[in-house]
């Protein structure tokens, strides 16, 4: 067996402090939340926290309200990720061209991404307001609508409108990731295709799109994870309403944990969401990796 060198011991010693901090702030809370998901922990009853095994998980998985929120989460995520992929691809293709003002446009593109989530949520709340919102003001002035339209208050529109606010914030990052992928495509390929007389659409479908697959994988994976776990906009815009129309899993976890103070059930829901996210990511990586 190889002896541990002095340098290795010194390195281990130097890293030990960092590892200890990471264990304290990351590993311990994760394991502790797993532990409390096995107990009926409700802070309103601090002296009565019996061990319940998997009862919290069973209760969550047999709740129709939870499955309703799963459906809304899936719909929100599908809408958001699909739109982000399409819009970000178009933006990346635009920024890959040489034209005057491209650098300024690239910088402006980052503004939504740089805006803090809470500010983004409050801004969209103002825009969507049916009484004094900017969206109604604009549409009325342009003559597209005759009277103020109900936006977030219409339960059929709530999820798409929240998804729109989410897309607005997420598109810049996705576009940059795709732009980096676009930049890595060798120019020779386009040159050779042009020599062969391939038109632009043919070059796009035969060269650009296949070459973007790694970027698509990365963006789909990242944005799907962000969408599934998204909370801020649901909290700021609708608080799960109207009538439960935006009651997604992340919102349900918040209500259960911090409003109802039922930490046991809340932790169980969080673990179910984490496992679902993990499985979804694994399936995406497996599915899309085959095409790379």
């Amino acid at each position: 067996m190889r002896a541990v060198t002095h340098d290795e011991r010194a390195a281990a010693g130097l890293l030990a402090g960092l590892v200890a901090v990471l264990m304290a702030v990351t590993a311990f809370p994760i394991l502790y939340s797993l532990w409390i998901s096995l107990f009926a922990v409700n802070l309103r009853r601090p002296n009565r926290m019996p061990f319940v095994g998997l009862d919290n998980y069973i209760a969550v998985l047999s709740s129709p309200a939870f499955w309703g929120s799963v459906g809304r989460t899936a719909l929100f995520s599908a809408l958001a990720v699909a739109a982000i992929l399409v819009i970000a691809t178009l933006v990346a293709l635009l920024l890959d061209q040489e034209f005057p003002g491209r650098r300024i446009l690239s910088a402006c593109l980052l503004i939504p991404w740089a805006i803090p989530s809470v500010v983004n949520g409050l801004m969209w709340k103002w825009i969507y307001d049916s009484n004094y919102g900017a969206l109604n003001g604009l549409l009325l002035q342009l003559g597209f609508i005759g009277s103020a339209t109900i936006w977030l208050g219409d339960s059929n529109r709530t999820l798409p409108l929240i998804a729109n606010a989410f897309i607005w914030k997420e598109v810049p990052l996705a576009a940059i990731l795709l732009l980096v992928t676009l930049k890595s495509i060798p120019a020779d390929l386009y040159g050779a295709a042009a020599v062969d007389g391939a038109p632009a659409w043919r070059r796009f479908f035969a060269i650009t799109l296949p070459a973007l697959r790694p970027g698509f994988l990365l963006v789909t994976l990242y944005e799907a994870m962000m969408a599934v776990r998204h909370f801020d906009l649901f909290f700021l815009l609708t608080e799960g309403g109207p009538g439960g129309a935006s009651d997604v899993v992340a919102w349900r976890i918040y209500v259960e944990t911090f409003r109802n103070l039922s930490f046991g059930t809340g932790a169980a829901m969080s673990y179910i969401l984490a496992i679902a996210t993990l499985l979804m990511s694994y399936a995406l990586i497996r599915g899309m990796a085959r095409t790379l």
Partner: protein
Amino acid sequence: MRSRPTLCRRAALSAGAAALSLPFVRGARAADPIGYATWSAAVAQVKAHVAGFEKQTGLPVAYSNSPFAQYRETMIAKFTGGAPLDMLWVSDAWLPEFAMAGWLAPIDAYKQLTAYDAVTSDFCVQSTVFEGKQYGLTYYTDYMSFLYNADILAKAGIPAPPATWDEVVSQALTIKSKGLLDYPVVFGMTQESWMIEFISAMVYSTGGRFIDDAGNATMQDPKTGAVAALTWLADAVQTHKVLSPGCVATGELEVLKTASAGRAAFVLLPKYRLKVLNDPAQSQAAGHFKQSLMPAGNRGSHSTVGWMRFFGATPRGLSGGRAEGLVMLMEWFGGKADGEYVFQKTILKDLGLGFGITELYKDPEVRADLGAYGDVDLMARQQALARKKDTISPWFGEWNDAHGTAWQQAIVGKISVEAALRTSAETWTALKKAG
């Protein structure tokens, strides 16, 4: 049979907190201040009043505050961690859970404090009582008020504000027919903490209740429950179209902004918002908003809902030699300081916050302050008709979540009024049974 293990989280947290605080224990004991926690409101006023108390009594006070949005959770974490708290601000909605957990101690034994009950609005006193014991003195209070834009009513040729909910509809239809507003009634029915206050005000004014004296759900009862109030809301949106369906995405702040922009004829808002509405610096409709008594339903009165926040004491604060100092501090804030209601008048003057001491409505300074933007006698009359929320219970939060969703669905016509109230009642009964 082996018993299931019980998670000793409190012990673990206490041990952790004790270990972390060991180096400071000696220093802390030397001063031994009264631990006083509030949310981050009226900070300058509280600090100044604490300084006055320390100067007067020589007793040190360790004042701390944290944002209201996380205050409840912060306090619960402090209680379970064994933090040195003696007095704190408490919302009426949290009383059952705080009292049942043993985090608050009753003040009934201290006549110096309970003497103020006689000069305090009844609903304020009742809001500090849980299972027959009183847990504090009023910090501030307010009630849901019915406000109208007199300018819009005048333009519509309406001589007097509505006295009943039927008149609200007829007047709103007149305003609508004259093209003054698409939706003359603006109420906030989004899922936020204000929603239950709006709803409770309407239920009480239509002569309804959510629960009976035994605590059983009566909200679904067509005669004594909340049917009339929810039916009015659903009809206002779906039939008369005087209230926007967007009300289910409208919060209290949006109601205020809409009214300030002159885009509302009738609103339900906390009474203290009248000051903002009639302030030219903050409202385009300044000078036009007036208060009238809450409209009555067919079997109702002009009742409304009142809420309050109070000074609560912890068992630590009322233990042994600490009690005397804490009682003095609680009276200094919740009662008289140097023979005057100093704190109540300060937060009214500086922040517009309401008071529970009814005799203050006769105080010349208070009348001058309130009279600058409203009818003082009417404010007092409406406060006398305010009632505490009857739904405050250990399961209030869970019930309110399900109840709010059901009401929103009924308002926009996704489900019937009866179905919404049945859901509301069944949720209440199940939670009550589970304890």
